[in-house]
């Protein structure tokens, strides 16, 4: 009963605080909204980049060159082994490989026409599942295939895969650094703003403490105010993100159409994203107000 009574007291006190200092609370809420809007945009951008990197990874193909002297059954055994591991395998005969080369070279392929026999070896073109696209997995697969008697060589564009992977890693790290900087800056601004609100109510805090209020009792309404500001900031940010998606996003999609991929820009779980943003807002507001009130009570 006592906890319910205290919760009601904290709620009333928080509402009163917001009512008496609307400007300070509006500044905090807008700061949080801007930070959360930026985080939401950054998250969408990171999501798109991930999708892009993932789809480029899908282009990675492993070409397995086979020994033309081994019987066809042995070559098929290699292909079947790969298929059993979930890979999509296309068998390319020497003739088909030559035809493809001629097509790709165009007029420059004239010199290939005089050849009496097919110069290219039979090969397998393998598309690996997503779980095996990491450079280490591809390296392991290539080494394993090279050890097979029917295989004379393996090519999977090692350099391209390594570079792509490095880019993806760098993008993720940059995202984390930007996230930490943004969250840190937001916390500093929000706690400084809320400290103004607390300072304006220092007399009330003093009186509460004189009649026997604990630090927790004093802190609770300010924490509640911080959390409410965070949720209000998140609501503004979500509204901003929806507006952004509906107005600017299609134009950006047109501008960057060369990068757009099937399914890009659609959000499968908008409510979950909104909930996460609201929780992030409440967390930021709570943390900012905790820092402010903690500093004030220790001063």
């Amino acid at each position, binding site marked *: 009963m006592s906890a319910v*009574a205290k919760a009601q007291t904290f709620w009333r006190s928080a509402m009163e605080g917001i009512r*008496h200092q609307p400007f300070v609370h509006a500044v905090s809420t807008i700061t949080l909204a801007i930070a959360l809007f930026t985080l939401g945009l950054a998250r969408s951008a990171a999501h798109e980049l991930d999708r892009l990197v993932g789809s480029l990874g899908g282009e990675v193909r492993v070409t397995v060159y086979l020994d033309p002297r081994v019987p066809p059954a042995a070559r098929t055994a290699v292909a079947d082994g790969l298929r059993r591991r979930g890979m999509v395998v296309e068998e390319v005969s020497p003739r088909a490989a030559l035809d493809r080369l001629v097509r790709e070279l165009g007029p420059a392929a004239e010199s290939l026409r005089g050849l009496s026999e097919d110069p290219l070896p039979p090969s397998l073109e393998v598309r690996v599942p997503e779980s095996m696209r990491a450079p280490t997995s591809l390296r392991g697969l290539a080494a394993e295939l090279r050890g097979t008697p029917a295989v004379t060589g393996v090519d999977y564009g090692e350099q391209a895969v390594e570079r792509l992977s490095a880019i993806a890693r760098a993008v993720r790290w940059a995202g984390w650094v930007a996230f930490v900087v943004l969250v840190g800056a937001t916390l500093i601004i929000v706690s400084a703003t809320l400290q103004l609100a607390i300072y304006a109510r220092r007399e009330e805090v003093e*009186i509460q403490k*004189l*009649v*026997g*209020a604990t*630090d927790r*009792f004093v802190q609770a309404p300010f924490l509640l105010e911080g959390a409410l500001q965070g949720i209000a900031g998140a609501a503004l940010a979500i509204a901003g993100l929806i507006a952004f998606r509906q107005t600017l996003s299609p134009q950006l999609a047109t501008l960057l159409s060369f990068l757009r991929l099937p399914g890009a820009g659609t959000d499968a779980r908008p409510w979950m994203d909104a909930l996460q943003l609201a929780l992030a807002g409440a967390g930021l507001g709570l943390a900012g107000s905790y820092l402010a009130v903690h500093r004030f009570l220790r001063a």
Partner: protein
Amino acid sequence: MIQMFHVTKAFPGDPPALVDVNLTVEKGEFVFLTGPSGAGKTTLLRLVFCAEPATRGQILVGGRNVARIRQASIPFLRRNIGVVFQDFKLLPHRTVLDNVALSLDVLGVPRPEARQRANRMLKLVGLQHKTESLPLKLSGGEQQRVVIARALVNEPALLLADEPTGNLDPALSQEIMSLLQDANVRGTTVIVATHDLPMVERSGKRVVRLDRGRIVSDAGGPTVVRRVG
């Protein structure tokens, strides 16, 4: 109720506010602290409710040594001490009723019960018709009565009043003193710091006189004379 042993309080750069003070206040007593401005009356009260730590000496309040009390325990000690300030210290944006109920809010008393008890206390101090007023709309005497109601609403064992009649005319001062005496009759130990010597003399209560931080006389009731510390 209160025992002070060789208590000294010094503020940096100033002469000591209290010097080697020894004082005992029994449970249920009514004591006046008097003396000129700067004698140390307010400092003595502030030491008792832990607004300041003593520089030297020991202070026992209700058997607890406040010199050794942990910071986190101070609020729980204060819940047993009602304090009346000369400058009222009322929350200007809250109603009279809410100001009085504040002492119960910090204890987690349910709101209906807190309001009921605050109403009863306001009736006792004669302000039942002002419950929804804001403090700044009240006269000085009325504000002081609100402060007394707030100090007494949770039935503390000890009531400290710092110049409770300092801003009031004689008639209102008498009214306030009556409220404090009523609280004392109900069992609360009361210590009042005041300049108002005629009122002190009329009361016939124990009087502890301070001068430059020292107790210079301690005379109690019609016949008892206590030790000088």
